[in-house]
């Protein structure tokens, strides 16, 4: 078992038993469910909309080479810089050097999962720069020195009281339990950061190929301040975020908002395609876009799972996932938690270390049902499991177990004998009182279940005697 798997099991056991945690998440997701249901009802045909979004992303991903080059050409023509980063390290090094060259000391960062993926903030802080998370949720988890809990709602696991106590401790002079006042305090604090920052870092929700612009959506307008007040704007994006045309946003924007939060559309949706030009009054002097690969090209090669690159990071699959709701976002120990993370992480960080996530699912399929771009999420978990077996990454005893199982099941006689023996053994053992003890052959099951009632006769034995002939 990998160390990541052992850690996951430990954390999962703790969180599964944490009823207070479950209650907080349940309440949050109940509200989301209600809003998302209302949101989906606004579409005249939700399933057709999903289908359309899937087609847009399919076209983009399957012709990524063309669209990315078209996008780059347009953006460069307007004076933007594009850096193709093969790895997270390449991306970090580029941004660090840029910041050092320009004498940057303060950075106003808005939400970006790619920045989390490459641990950008930590790298910049190591170089002595101050990085302010300006998304409210991210700001809160930054104060707690925690990674985001959820890709859309990073502080979902915290109550108002938690945040009130946190602000009181960290911000000084803030002592309130009122959401408006707490938001006001964060805004005043962050406003200073925006004015001081020489560099703004944002993510990108979409890279629009035909106009060479990035599309950024936030509910707080923090990305807009971050890309217009500081002198330098750095945007980070995975290469899979490219879409063919501006027209595609007509459906992708409402789809992202509806799936993400249930809103008809996110509050602030901005297109930016380069630095300030001579006839413009605001905008950055320099604009840099980092296009991150970090394993995505390899995923693109995998025809079976290529559609994982359709993901628009709406977080709907996390909310729908009963495992996510039980163990929480931090337990995964990955940048992307929940179903999309379980599918994606083995590709980004290796199947050996992260294959356990593909097994940590009941394969209920709720994720696949809600995905706005129709990624076949739970079937990809099955595919990852098959890959782990085919690449001989599973323990020998499990492999042997399935060989034996197969041999037994390939003959009705063998199955009948094995079944009768197994039931007989369990009946004897349970009569001897081993249930729940170390000798219980149903060990991990018996920990949470009453002993199964073991019937004396199998169905086939009853059938042979002529049941149901009445």
């Amino acid at each position, binding site marked *: 078992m990998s160390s990541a798997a052992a850690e996951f099991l430990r954390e999962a056991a703790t969180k599964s038993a944490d009823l207070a945690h479950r209650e907080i998440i349940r309440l949050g997701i109940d509200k989301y469910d209600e809003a998302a249901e209302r949101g989906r009802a606004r579409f005249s045909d939700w399933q057709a909309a999903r289908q359309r979004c899937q087609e847009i992303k399919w076209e983009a991903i399957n012709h990524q080479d063309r669209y990315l080059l078209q996008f780059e050409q347009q953006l460069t023509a307007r004076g933007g810089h594009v850096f193709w980063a093969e790895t997270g390290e390449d991306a970090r090094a580029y941004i660090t050097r840029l910041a050092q060259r320009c004498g940057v000391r303060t950075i106003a960062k808005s939400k970006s999962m790619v920045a989390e993926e490459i641990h950008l903030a930590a790298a910049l802080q190591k170089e002595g720069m101050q990085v302010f998370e300006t998304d409210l949720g991210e700001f809160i988890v930054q104060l707690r020195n925690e990674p985001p809990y959820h890709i859309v709602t990073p502080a979902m696991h915290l109550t108002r009281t938690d945040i009130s106590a946190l602000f009181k401790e960290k911000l000084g002079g803030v002592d309130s339990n009122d959401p408006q006042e707490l938001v006001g305090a964060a805004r005043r604090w962050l406003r200073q950061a925006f004015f001081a920052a020489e560099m703004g870092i944002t993510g990108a929700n979409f890279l629009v190929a035909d106009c060479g612009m990035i599309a950024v959506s936030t509910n707080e307008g923090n990305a807009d301040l971050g890309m217009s007040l500081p002198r330098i704007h750095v945007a980070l994006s995975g290469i899979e975020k490219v879409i063919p045309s501006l027209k595609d946003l007509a459906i992708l924007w409402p789809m992202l908002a509806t799936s993400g939060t249930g809103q008809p559309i996110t509050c602030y949706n901005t297109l930016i395609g380069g630095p300030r030009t001579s006839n413009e009054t605001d905008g950055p002097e320099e604009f840099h876009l980092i296009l991150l690969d970090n394993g995505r090209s390899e995923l693109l090669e995998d025809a079976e799972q290529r559609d994982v690159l359709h993901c628009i990071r709406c977080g709907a699959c996390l909310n729908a996932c009963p495992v996510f709701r039980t*163990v929480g976002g931090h337990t995964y120990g990955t940048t992307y938690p929940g179903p999309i993370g379980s599918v994606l992480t083995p590709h980004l960080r290796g199947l050996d270390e992260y294959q356990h996530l593909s*097994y940590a699912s009941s394969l209920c399929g709720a994720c696949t049902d809600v995905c706005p771009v129709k990624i076949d999420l739970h079937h990809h978990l099955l595919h990852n499991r098959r890959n782990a*077996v085919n690449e001989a990454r599973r323990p020998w005893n499990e492999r042997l177990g*399935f060989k034996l199982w197969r041999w037994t099941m*390939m003959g009705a006689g063998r199955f009948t004998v094995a079944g009768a023996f197994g039931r007989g053994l369990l009946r004897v053992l349970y009569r001897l009182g081993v249930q729940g003890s170390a000798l219980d052959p149903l060990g991990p099951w018996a*920990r*949470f279940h009453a002993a199964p009632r073991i019937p004396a006769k199998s169905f086939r034995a009853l059938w042979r005697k002529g049941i*149901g002939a009445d």
Partner: protein
Amino acid sequence: MKVALFIPCFVDQLMPDVGVDTAKVLRRIGCDVDFPMEQTCCGQPAFNAGYWNDARPLGERFVKIFRDAQAVVCPSGSCTTMVRNFYSELLAGSALHDEAVQLCQRVYEFSEFLVKVVNRLDVGAAFPHRVGYHDACHALRELRLKQEPREILRRVRGLELVELPYCEDCCGFGGTFAVKFNTISAAMGEAKASSASTANAEFLTSTDPSCLLHIDGILRRQNSRVRTLHLANILARTEPAAERSSEFAAPGTAQ
């Protein structure tokens, strides 16, 4: 109509009453029921664990056993899903692939068969209790059966169908998931068990015996008054309430 019973391996060994009651109901509505004795397992445990090479011969074996059946009926949405939705992928490249795809069209989950094939929503059952229906994931999201079992339950004499909160949430069974990740599985099962209590159901039913095996173990461990019964167990009951109530009443509930 001639019907071949497909009884999942664990039902055969651990829940034979589900098989017996399925046969009973099918016979009552006039089906000619056969149980091909050669059958064992559809291969799902190995398939779900990633051991497709070990699952494949079982898939081929299943096709050979059931190839001549007019209709195959299974009291499990999950095992039906294995055959109907996954055999095509599992048996890709097999000489039996095309025959498997043909056969898949004739494999039905029990409630689906009653509603969609023979159109018998009322099977003459009586069960005067408050019953909650748990939407088993494979039946709901792979076979798209949502109203079928409910329509049938609504026609059972005396039965009061109650909707459970979060009825579409997974119960947490998931095969080997329940063993490998028992803490998560149990927490999900406990949430499901408490939803039945919240809805004040006497019985919890479903189309999937595996969910019920899991939920039942948790309910009994909690000393809950809620009992589990497979849909077929309920549909098999025809006797007037007074005669049978002592046998099926949940302990502690007023009769």
